[in-house]
């Protein structure tokens, strides 16, 4: 694997994890008695940028290296289901994240002033944020299992 591919793979993992951290911070602060709306906006925007950048870097690694060099090794091994179930699901579910995070950012940007007085809105936004974090964590765990299945 070339240094460029290693850089893209590491960047993909780092950016995806950063997105999870930004949204976890968002989730923890939305229920504060005096939520800092400036940070809600910043965290959701940074999470959006992280997932978009992770999409591009991971996409480069996946389309130029994984299919040719990693996938055949996993499929020949004992845990071929890791590719055919986990990787196939992960690579497509990942595409949800930028759109879900864009919706979260848009609601935060345009309606943050209503969060304090409209509890239904705040709860639904928290539900959306929790869903994004859960899906992103599932994708991250799948990535760990996929890495572990190489050469087994």
């Amino acid at each position, binding site marked *: 694997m070339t240094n460029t591919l290693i850089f893209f793979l590491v960047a993909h993992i780092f950016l995806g994890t950063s997105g999870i951290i930004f949204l976890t911070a968002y989730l923890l602060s939305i229920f504060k008695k005096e939520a800092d709306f400036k940070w809600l906006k910043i965290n959701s925007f940074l999470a959006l940028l992280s997932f978009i950048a992770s999409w591009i870097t991971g996409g480069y690694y996946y*389309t130029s290296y994984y299919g040719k060099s990693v996938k055949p090794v996993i499929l020949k091994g004992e845990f071929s289901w890791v590719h055919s179930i986990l990787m196939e*699901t992960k690579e*497509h579910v990942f595409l949800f994240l930028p759109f*879900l995070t864009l*919706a979260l950012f848009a609601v935060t940007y345009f*309606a943050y002033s209503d969060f304090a007085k*409209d509890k239904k809105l705040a709860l*639904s936004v928290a*539900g959306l944020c929790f869903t994004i974090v859960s899906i992103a964590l*599932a994708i991250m765990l799948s990535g760990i299992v996929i890495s572990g299945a190489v050469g087994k």
Partner: protein
Amino acid sequence: MEDKKPILSAIIVSAILTIAAIVFLTIFGELNPVFKAWLTKTFSHHWIGKSIISVLVFLVSSPVFYVLRLKKISIPALIWLLVAVANLSFGILLAFFFVETYF
């Protein structure tokens, strides 16, 4: 928020439509090798094709839903619908690839 409701509704409904489109493209691509081959030939990789088409679906549907002015459904209801569609779509794809692998 009332003045921002049309743009928020448009973005949320477009996100719902885009996720549904990703699920459709994925499952249809697996069941129809000709379609998957077309994606690969046109976009150099089927995953790049799905990525580009999903962005296009979002970019085209957002202005359409904005013009339609979806004011009847509340923003919290639309957000919960988006949450439900995202979770359901995750489950559908996982179940599909499980069935495709073992059955």
